[in-house]
């Protein structure tokens, strides 16, 4: 004969009627707040982008820049010069910032989830070291694997940036795709690429060295629509794949054993995510160079606000990443105007202290 407490507990489980308590209502409220956060960030991107359209030597007002943009989209071009500046010069830069922000933030979020490591970011697979090596080869030695004239450096950076992840996936295939194996393989290949890049840098002229440095500093300069299309293809397809995998990523967070028992092949999921994230990161880093901190800090900040449910965390990080990167670009272009500070420097300047503040002020133990 079971005790009354046990009978009551089993009654609670068997009972069809459920009397909700505050804690459960809270779940519904928090879901609404998460969606609100994503919406606010999306509006934020539009507003910051609108403001960015006004920045430059040629003065165009905030609302007028939207009018010019709308005019171009509907085929009613009033002023050719304004249209050229807004559509050909400023909008590609903004779009590059938005796409790169979305991509880097998603990469960081997914990498932190699959590697169970709060320090993982978009470059955790050694993408940046590979890209840096590829670009250095093209700039210093004219070596070019793909042979696309104007995009020689970008194409080289892209191809080489994928080598580390191929090595990681091969090691994972041989030794199992555990987070530790993948991180260690990534670090090993990163050091090899960095050392080779340094070796090349030692043997080139100062002018070439300056070109390599210019490439490596993360910036949104020289953006074009063609670049936006290519980046969008990789980043937005990756976004879709990651969003579709978000429930599986949630299951993975309870441990590989649990995930497998529910029917998720954790090794395959981890390898798929790593491949997709690397493609996304490679497409970004090849065009913009190293933009740091977005991929590391964005997921952490957003996790404090919307929690760790990847169904909401991934789009929220994407939206916040886009806001943060476009806002950083505005700051970089205005604080010492007419000179500019590369966006990669600004993101680190903002991200570092913000991250530190969060660590000190945090109320809940997320990691």
């Amino acid at each position, binding site marked *: 004969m079971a005790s009354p407490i046990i009978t009551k*507990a089993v009654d609670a489980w068997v009972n069809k009627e*459920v009397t909700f308590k505050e804690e459960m209502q809270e779940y519904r409220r928090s879901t609404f707040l998460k969606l609100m956060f994503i919406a606010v960030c999306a509006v934020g991107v539009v507003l910051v982008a609108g403001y960015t359209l006004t920045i430059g030597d040629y003065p165009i007002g905030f609302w007028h820049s939207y009018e010019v943009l709308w005019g171009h989209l509907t085929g009613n071009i009033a002023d050719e010069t304004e249209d050229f500046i807004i559509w050909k010069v400023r909008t590609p830069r903004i779009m590059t910032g938005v796409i790169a922000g979305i991509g880097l933030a998603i990469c960081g979020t997914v990498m932190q989830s699959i590697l169970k490591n709060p320090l993982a970011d978009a470059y955790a697979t050694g993408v940046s070291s590979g890209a840096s090596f590829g670009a250095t080869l093209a700039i210093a030695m004219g070596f070019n694997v793909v042979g696309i004239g104007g995009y020689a450096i970008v194409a080289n950076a892209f191809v080489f940036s994928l080598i580390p992840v191929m090595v990681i996936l091969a090691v994972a295939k041989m030794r199992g795709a555990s987070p530790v194996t993948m991180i260690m393989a990534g670090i090993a290949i990163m050091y090899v690429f960095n050392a080779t890049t340094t070796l090349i840098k030692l043997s080139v002229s100062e002018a070439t060295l300056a070109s390599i440095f210019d490439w490596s500093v993360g910036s949104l300069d020289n953006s074009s629509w063609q670049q936006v299309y290519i980046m969008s293809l990789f980043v937005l397809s990756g976004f879709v794949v990651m969003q579709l995998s978000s429930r599986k990523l949630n299951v993975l967070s*309870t441990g590989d054993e649990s995930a497998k*028992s529910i029917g998720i092949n954790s090794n395959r999921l981890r390898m798929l995510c790593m491949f997709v994230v690397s493609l996304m990161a490679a497409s970004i880093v090849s065009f913009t160079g190293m933009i740091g901190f977005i991929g590391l800090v964005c997921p952490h900040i957003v996790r404090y606000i919307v929690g760790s449910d990847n169904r909401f965390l991934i789009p929220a990080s994407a939206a916040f990443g886009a806001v943060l990167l476009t806002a950083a670009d505005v700051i970089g272009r205005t604080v010492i105007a007419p000179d500019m500070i590369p966006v990669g420097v600004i993101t680190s300047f903002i991200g570092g202290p913000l991250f530190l503040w969060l660590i000190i002020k945090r109320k809940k133990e997320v990691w």
Partner: protein
Amino acid sequence: MAIIRLENMCCGYGSRTILHDISFTVEKPEYICVVGPNGVGKSTLIRTLNGLLKPSSGIIELNDRPLASYTQKEVAKIVGYVPVLNSDFNIMTVLETVLIGRYSHQRWRTTQGDLDIAYKALQAMEIEDLAQCMFNELSAGQKQKVSIARGLVQEPSVLMLDEPTANLDIRHQVYVSAFLKELSERTQITVFTVSHDLNLASKYADRIILMERPGKICAIGTPQEIITRSNIRRVYGVDCTISDDMGTPHVVLQDVLEVSLDRR
């Protein structure tokens, strides 16, 4: 109809065989507890029954159908598995963690039905107040109860738990064991647990599977049949006396015996 049937099943990791010629049948919902010394293959047995490990030979059937013919997602709708508590990071809230158990039933959206079931499971484990707490902030015992709640919300007809009372204080050890027993009786669920506590197994299990080295079943039967001085001396190399606690055998441990290397 047999819920679970194993016949001459062998299983292991790589070329190393852990389980040898395991045979038993579960024909009606009951509370079964697997006991035995460390490293004897208790967890391997539960992982094999759950489809996580493929047997190297022999037969495993679930509801009269070969286990190999099920997809893992289909198995998840029948078998709920609560692995031994690991140190993996889980950066979700308690409620989110429990809701993960609904994966095989759920589509993208969390429905009111999912929330109802999750709440009932939290209530059954007396942890509804922790719903919005971060899983990482909980004590080991609380985490254990969250894991059990996650297994419950799968609404399985077979619930397998690897050391569900590890990390729990005595109140919660008794609570969880009594709950599983009552659950099995009232909801016709087969509960399959791995345990090191012979007295809890003896008090609550309908049947006990006693395993011995090297990965064999020493005996299967009711607590009265299995919990004997000779069985415990043989399997564990420990001397004991068995007292009678209102019809349930109760083990009072005495001393460690000399045992040969292959039995240690």
